[in-house]
């Protein structure tokens, strides 16, 4: 790696001048990073500022001019929460997301334990099948599951979307948690076994407590995945009063595309929980998201 063409050791003086050059080189870096920060912040900040501006102001001046006017209001939020039903949609999203996170969390932990520490026929082949199923797009579920659910009444409840989200979350959860569980110290589990702990006992008292970071990362990833989902909700939530926020906002956009004050406030209500999670649990969040890149 050090074999940079035609290079030879140089004297100290050059290293010093090189340091000077590198110091001066930093100014363009700061400028470039400043531009990058503005490009990545301005669109979101613009939405946030717009969401607090009176409707009459939004129509006549840009959000970037509002810092001089300094007229802000909470009215947009009141309107979108109450008369546009965003408050109901918020609770619908919550009511979809919590079971769709907890069910796969429990089931994937249990299955991952079986794949990592229990013996059964075709274990490795079945695990490869799980890895293969990671890639299956949710689209395969639409038609068959709509047919399957239609006579059961599940489409009039959240049962359909809970089951659909769970099924498509399991391969990734098993994959992620199994790869964590196999790194647990073998001696610890052997010792517990010798002390007479049952299979269930080892899972509950050793494997789960030691795997909290991985389980948390998966839980956060799955929660935000469902929170932010639109496609599954479009297909498996058919009653208007059960729509989550993503669908409610898409609806707002297609019906009142120029009611900017409502759109901005609505979008921010949708973003609020993920942003809180992002800022408070950034470590787990980034881990879960990176790990989730296979999904």
């Amino acid at each position: 790696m050090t074999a940079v063409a035609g290079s030879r050791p140089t004297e100290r003086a050059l290293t010093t001048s090189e340091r000077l050059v590198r110091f001066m080189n930093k100014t363009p870096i700061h400028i470039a990073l400043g531009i990058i920060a503005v490009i990545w912040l301005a669109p979101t900040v613009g939405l946030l500022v717009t969401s607090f501006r009176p409707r009459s102001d939004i129509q006549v001046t840009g959000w970037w001019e509002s810092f001089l006017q300094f007229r802000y209001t909470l009215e947009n939020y009141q309107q979108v929460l109450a008369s546009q039903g965003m408050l109901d949609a918020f609770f619908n999203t919550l009511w979809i997301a919590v079971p769709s996170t907890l069910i796969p969390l429990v089931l994937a932990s249990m299955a991952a334990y079986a794949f990592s520490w229990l013996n059964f026929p075709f274990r490795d082949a079945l695990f490869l099948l799980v890895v293969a199923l990671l890639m299956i797009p949710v689209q395969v579920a639409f038609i068959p599951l709509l047919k399957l659910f239609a006579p059961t009444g599940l489409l009039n409840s959240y049962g359909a979307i809970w089951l659909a989200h769970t099924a498509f979350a399991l391969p990734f959860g098993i994959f992620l948690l199994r790869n964590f569980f196999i790194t647990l110290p073998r001696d610890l589990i052997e010792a517990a076994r010798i002390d007479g702990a049952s299979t269930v006992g080892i899972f509950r008292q050793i494997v789960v407590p030691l795997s909290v970071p991985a389980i948390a990362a998966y839980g956060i990833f799955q929660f935000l995945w469902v929170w932010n989902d639109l496609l599954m909700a479009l297909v498996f939530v058919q009653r208007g009063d059960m729509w989550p926020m993503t669908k409610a906002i898409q609806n707002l956009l297609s019906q009142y595309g120029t009611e900017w004050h409502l759109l901005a406030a609505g979008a921010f209500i949708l973003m609020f929980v993920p942003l809180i999670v992002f800022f408070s649990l950034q470590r787990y969040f980034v881990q879960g998201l990176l790990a989730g890149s296979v999904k």
Partner: protein
Amino acid sequence: MAVVTPGGVDAAGVATTAAPATSPATPIAGRRWDRAVILFLGPTALLMLIFLIYPTLYTIALSFNRGRRGEFTEWVGLQHYIGLLNDKSFINLSTFPPSGAIWNNVLWAIFYTGFVIFLGLVVAVLASRVRYESIIKAVVFLPMAIAATALAIIWNFVYAPDPNIGLLNAILDPFTSGSISWLGNPALVNAALIAAGIWGSVGFATVILSAALKSIPSEVLEAARTDGANERQIFFRIILPMVSLPISVLAVTLLVNVIKLFDLIYVLTNGGPGVSSRVIAFTMYNESIPGGQFGRGAAITVIMLLLLIPIMAFNIRRFRSSRVV
């Protein structure tokens, strides 16, 4: 293919050495066939069989059937596939440049993947030189947290033709005559959507590539500097070769994103104007659910599956080479 290891994130499998290379999961000694498996794996196996494997097989079969109301009515062979290839909104190679949903996915695959990796590398390298690295990374990563629906609303504002709403038209206002309809012009709409997609994903690439850059031993870089290598040589001859594996993993992940891309298109343009910004996953939804063309929708899903199979094989191979199964 990242794995959360006890030490922290193994960024998209950058440091596969972090996980044990030998099969660690030799089961607990003395047990041959642990009956508790039925308890631990049973419910999961049942759910995956009914809601994942059965629908996959059903959809594949349905793609060769008339598929009225999603039921098996009459076998039609490849008719849906032939119909799709002749559908100008799906794939149109008769003009130059080509158009249609498949072609738009190709544009996404090239420009979205390319720019996300390039910009991710630029931000990671630049940020590593300054003290406020973590702030820059957090700022760029932020869009990853929010829903694609929210991202679509954000960019709906940026692209708005009204210069009092649309930031982009406000900036360009002094230089152009009249505002530009970024999302309403078939010639611009795909570029505008791809730019919004890039904005949303660069943070992901930055975090992965930044972890990869940090895994390069500083002695190597110091040695090269002492040997008189300039920054450009160091970048192209040391850094780039050493992050080529994470880049390939990242590229695969982004390609999967492209194949599954739906929300952004659906919310921002609904495939329009006309059909000019449709992508494959959008067409699948549109034909199946509002359109009721279930057989055709199934055929599109099978095409998505075919595109994903090489990626699936790539992942399984990587998985098997990193640890013995």
